[in-house]
């Protein structure tokens, strides 16, 4: 009975997706999207049987561990055991997000069929979080069980992909710039152009995350990623393709650039700002740089998959990490920008030297150089992706 409904719903959602991924049009269509989602939700609840019904009660997974998917190098070793001790809720913490698209491919089919993905919190970058929300894959957050949500910093409260933060809250914000090994480069770096220096042929990597790699190369070309046109994308992709074909670029990676950088296989990588400290145990020499042309700014967001039957536990975890002292504990080991108010003061108590670090608290001069990639329409997304996949030889 449900097949046809699913197909209709798929079609509807595809349409909504197309409209909604354009930031400009988002507000007008979001009301429509909410309507569509409510309808989708009802359909699913009536078809889904067991899995659909249990979420509201929150007792479905009572006693069950909260299962989290996050990126590597994104947490300290104390938070999980401390949370378990404080709440009695067990945590199954997986560092299995290496790349947004790759992770989406794994969860798309089961979520489309309203099946469990055995995860209660997933952490995804803004644009991908937006896609999950539009597709109706994310559960609305019950604010009554998440009082610390009030600690969310003001500038991230009303983002275009989730107005009012109904479905998502940031884990941390980060910057994409240059990670490098001064021992291998033999000099300090300043510019994105350094990654194209023939001296480092075969010793550099870029990210498969299109918005980061494309954004940085656009900045190098003096183009603005916030207003990226097809011509900009083409120019940046040509630059990348040339460097790939000449053997300048050794690989395109997800978070796995970290191991190559630490192992000394590469000298320079497009890298995320807070990862380097996590690698210092393997290689204390590594450095991260916001190049003079600028760096890319993004947030990674926690979402609860709609099929999670442990939403209360998930909310308890979110509430825990939104306590400033707890957020500071995470930032101490993963020096990214915390979205939680008051974290700076708490961090000053436990790691004073880090509290003033530009990675954690970018100074005005750096903030001016941070860029957010344009919210692409569906057509742009497809076209940019096609160009980018061709450029990276995938």
């Amino acid at each position, binding site marked *: 009975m449900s097949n046809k409904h699913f197909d209709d719903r798929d079609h509807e959602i595809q349409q909504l997706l197309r409209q909604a991924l354009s930031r400009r049009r988002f507000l007008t269509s979001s009301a429509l999207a909410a309507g569509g989602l409510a309808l989708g939700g009802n359909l699913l609840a009536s078809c889904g049987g067991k899995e659909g019904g249990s979420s509201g009660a929150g007792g479905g997974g009572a006693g069950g561990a909260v299962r989290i998917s996050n990126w590597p190098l994104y947490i300290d070793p104390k938070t999980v055991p401390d949370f378990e001790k404080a709440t009695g809720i067990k945590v199954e913490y997986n560092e299995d997000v290496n*790349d947004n*698209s*790759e992770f989406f*491919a*794994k969860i798309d089919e089961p979520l489309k069929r309203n099946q469990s993905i055995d995860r209660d919190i997933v952490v995804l970058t803004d644009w991908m979080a937006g896609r999950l929300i539009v597709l109706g894959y994310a559960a609305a957050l019950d604010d009554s069980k998440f009082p610390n949500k009030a600690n969310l910093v003001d500038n991230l409260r009303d983002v275009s992909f989730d107005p009012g933060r109904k479905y998502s809250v940031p884990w941390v914000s980060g910057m994409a710039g240059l990670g490098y090994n001064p021992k291998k480069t033999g000099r300090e770096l300043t510019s994105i152009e350094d990654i194209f220096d023939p001296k480092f042929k*075969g010793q550099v990597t870029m990210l*498969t995350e299109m918005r980061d790699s494309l954004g940085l190369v656009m900045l190098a070309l003096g183009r603005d990623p916030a207003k990226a046109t097809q011509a900009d994308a083409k120019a940046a992709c040509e630059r990348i393709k040339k460097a*790939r*074909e000449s*053997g300048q*670029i*050794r*690989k*395109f990676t997800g978070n796995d650039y970290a191991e190559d950088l630490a*192992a*000394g*296989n590469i000298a320079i990588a497009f890298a995320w700002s807070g990862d380097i400290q996590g690698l210092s145990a393997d290689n204390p020499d590594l450095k991260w740089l916001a190049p003079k042309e600028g760096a890319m700014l993004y947030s990674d967001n926690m979402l609860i998959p709609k099929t999670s039957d442990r939403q209360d536990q998930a909310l308890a975890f979110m509430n825990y990490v939104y306590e400033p002292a707890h957020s500071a504990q995470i930032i101490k080991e993963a020096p990214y920008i915390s979205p939680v108010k008051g974290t700076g003061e708490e961090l000053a108590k436990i790691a004073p030297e880090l509290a003033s670090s530009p990675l954690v608290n970018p100074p005005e001069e750096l903030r001016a150089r941070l860029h957010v990639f344009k919210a692409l329409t569906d057509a742009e997304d497809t076209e940019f*992706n096609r160009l980018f*996949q*061709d450029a*990276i*030889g*995938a």
Partner: protein
Amino acid sequence: MAGTGAASARQYRLAPYLLIAPGILWLLVFFVVPLVALAQTSVASSGEPWWDGYVRALGTYGTHFLRSFRYALIATVLSLLLGYPLAYVIAFRAGRLKNLLLGLVILPFFTTFLVRTFAWKTILSDGGPAVWLLQQVHLLSEGGRLLDTTLAVIGGLTYNFLPFMILPIYVSLEKIDRRLVEAAQDLYSTPLGAFRRVVMPLSLPGVFAGSLLTFIPASGDFINAELLGSPNQQMIGTVIQNQFLEVRDYPLAAALSFVLMAIITVGVMAYTKVLGTEDLG
């Protein structure tokens, strides 16, 4: 009496069908059905003519196909060169060590493919022992590298598929009647002549099976190219994986899979014609 005879004769006639039924059913459910679904996907480009996926598959990824077959061919030849002497020694000369040596050939399978390939990544890394050694003997220039090169990908393929070459060759060598070799020598054949005229022809079915078992999976492999290669060594398997999982262009990915299957099927048929051994059937 006559009745039971007829019944048993009928049972006898039915026996082969009953014996192959589970296998046929298995293949039907897990091979034919997915294949049909894949075929449907490959022609389902929305808003484009049905052949769109195939045109793009051949138009855009020709170099990837050629590269895959080139790598797989080189890996197969290397496996043969390494594997045949090894299988020969195990079959004819190993004596009491035979089982131990066979066990050692199979031993790598106790860890997964992925972990073994990751191990290669460590061994070949720029600061690793292999690079250091080759630089000491000046086979590799200062600043040269092994990881993320064609050499590493072909090396990985050869390493990972070598046992699939050794085992069939071993089996066909093992079952050769030693008296045939003795007879050749009695008839004043040199050891080399006996090998060339007796052992080698009799072992061809093993070579045939081994080269297919090596070549086919190697040409569709993506792990080695992904982990040990750079973007300039990407094989068709990497492209298919990427199209399915990252770009999510299912028609293109399915079309690529079919083109790969078609080329391999034609290739294998041609190969059978040339080296074709009725023994194998």
